[in-house]
């Protein structure tokens, strides 16, 4: 039973990776503008996320170290500094987008401008981190995150054509060069393969005191958790393709249409609840992931299960991150533009975050006989190659397609 409950870590990680504002917006834009044609990107992102989270969990369960620890030990100050800078800056942008998404969901529910919700939302996120233990966050977000299953129900309700969906699962090129198509493809992968996901999952495995005995549970948790998110992100795309065809979504007020056109007024509330809990889960996850990375890299005392006074630098780091992140909300930054930019930049720093992971997964000093085999390595090399390609094209596409 205890091992079954580990799935909560997978679902929490997945909610923060797949069902936050980045994934919801990019999947909706892809479905509305290109029908099912970008479904393959969601599938590819899901496969990559399953593989990478399995590696991150295996690394921590076997070596009893987090990725942050090992990154500093194995690669030294420069690489660690570079990863913290790259992953940190892009994650703060994503955090800004998530807090703004949370405020927007609250505006949709109350009619009061999202900018006014900035401070109460930031306080709520901080309070959960301050008072909540890791298990509360894990099971709370994973449990409430089940509301996002409404996207799956909607996908069945709209009765999409099977052959067209199956064709969408196969990679396809646009008939003529189309910057927007590739920009959305890069953004979907950027929204799915966010580097903080793996640092968070690795730290979560240590917070949950995983050992080598959890290796098989880790495989199931990674697969179930990421499939949960991937299938739901796919469902968002499918529903958007069916109910919002040829629509360019440039205003967040249009977002709830994806469910309200299926379920009416109930759909509106289901969307608001899904966006709210998805963004909350992602905001908690990003804040913790970056704080973990710093605390582990400098060997401070860390952990959500400690009292705040027992880990002063840890709690003040997440406090500062929430304070910086909410500035985007208070400034009234365009949420959709910020989301698209953050996702494209996340894709740009992916090689920086993934290459050390691949090297660590082959280091037998940490993993012994549980180091990557040829299959996992082959897959990881493909992922790093895809991430390198994404890095090269993401910035020009952000300018051309965004």
């Amino acid at each position, binding site marked *: 039973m205890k091992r079954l409950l580990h799935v909560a870590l997978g679902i929490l990680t997945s909610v923060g990776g797949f069902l936050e504002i980045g994934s919801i917006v990019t999947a909706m834009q892809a479905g509305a503008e290109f029908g099912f044609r970008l479904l393959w990107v969601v599938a590819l992102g899901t496969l990559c996320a399953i593989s990478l989270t399995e590696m991150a969990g295996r690394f921590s369960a076997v070596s009893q170290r987090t990725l942050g*620890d090992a990154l500093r030990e194995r690669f030294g100050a*420069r690489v660690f500094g570079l990863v913290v800078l790259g992953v940190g800056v892009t994650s703060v942008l994503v955090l800004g987008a998530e807090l703004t998404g949370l405020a927007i969901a609250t505006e949709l529910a109350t009619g009061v401008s999202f900018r006014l919700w900035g401070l109460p939302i930031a306080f709520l996120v901080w309070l959960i981190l*301050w008072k909540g233990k890791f298990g509360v966050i894990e099971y709370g977000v994973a449990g409430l995150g089940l509301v996002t299953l409404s996207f799956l129900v909607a996908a069945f309700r709209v009765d999409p054509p099977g052959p067209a969906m199956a064709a969408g699962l196969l990679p396809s090129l646009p008939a003529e060069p189309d910057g927007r198509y590739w920009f959305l493809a890069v953004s979907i992968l950027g929204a799915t393969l966010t580097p903080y996901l793996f640092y968070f999952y690795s730290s979560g495995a240590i917070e949950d005191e995983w050992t080598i005995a959890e290796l098989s549970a880790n495989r199931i948790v990674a697969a179930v958790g990421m499939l949960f998110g991937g299938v739901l992100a796919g469902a968002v795309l499918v529903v958007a393709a069916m109910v919002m065809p040829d629509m360019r979504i440039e205003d967040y007020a249009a977002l709830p249409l994806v469910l309200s056109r299926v379920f009416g007024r109930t759909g509106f509330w289901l969307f608001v609840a899904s966006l709210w809990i998805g963004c909350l889960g992602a905001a908690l996850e990003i804040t913790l992931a970056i704080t973990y990375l710093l605390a582990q890299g400098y*060997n401070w005392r860390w952990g959500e299960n400690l009292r705040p006074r027992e880990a*002063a630098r840890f709690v*003040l780091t997440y406090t500062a991150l929430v304070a910086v992140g909410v500035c985007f909300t208070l400034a009234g930054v365009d949420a959709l533009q910020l989301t698209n930019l953050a996702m494209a930049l996340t894709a740009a720093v992916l090689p920086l975050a993934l290459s050390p992971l691949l090297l660590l997964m082959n280091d037998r000093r940490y993993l012994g006989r549980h180091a990557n085999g040829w299959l996992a390595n082959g897959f990881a090399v493909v992922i790093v190659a895809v991430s390198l390609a994404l890095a090269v094209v993401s910035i020009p596409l952000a300018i051309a397609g965004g």
Partner: protein
Amino acid sequence: MDIRRDLLDMPLIGADGEPMGRVDGVIASYTDGRPLRLVWVEIGGATFARRIHPRLERWTRALARRFSPSRGRVCRIPLSAIRTFGKRLKLRDDQAAWPAQVWERWLRHKVVERIPGS
């Protein structure tokens, strides 16, 4: 001992298991004709910054002199104060790494403990 593999960037743990930072730098002494002898390990933001870029070290040092509770004092631990080497470097007693904990203690007393629920 391989300095890069076994010493640099390894975590230091106090006698009671408290995390005490990481080895940011090492100091060795050299006398003509004799092998290099490791004397101290250093912990601190400025030492870490030096390994990234000397200019970053100057900035960090200047900031630490002005704002750090230890007034930029570098934490140097004699190698003899390390009891065990391995995945974690365990100290004989916490006194040696006291300056490395100055920020943690200062933030705890001056900030965190003043917030309700800490």
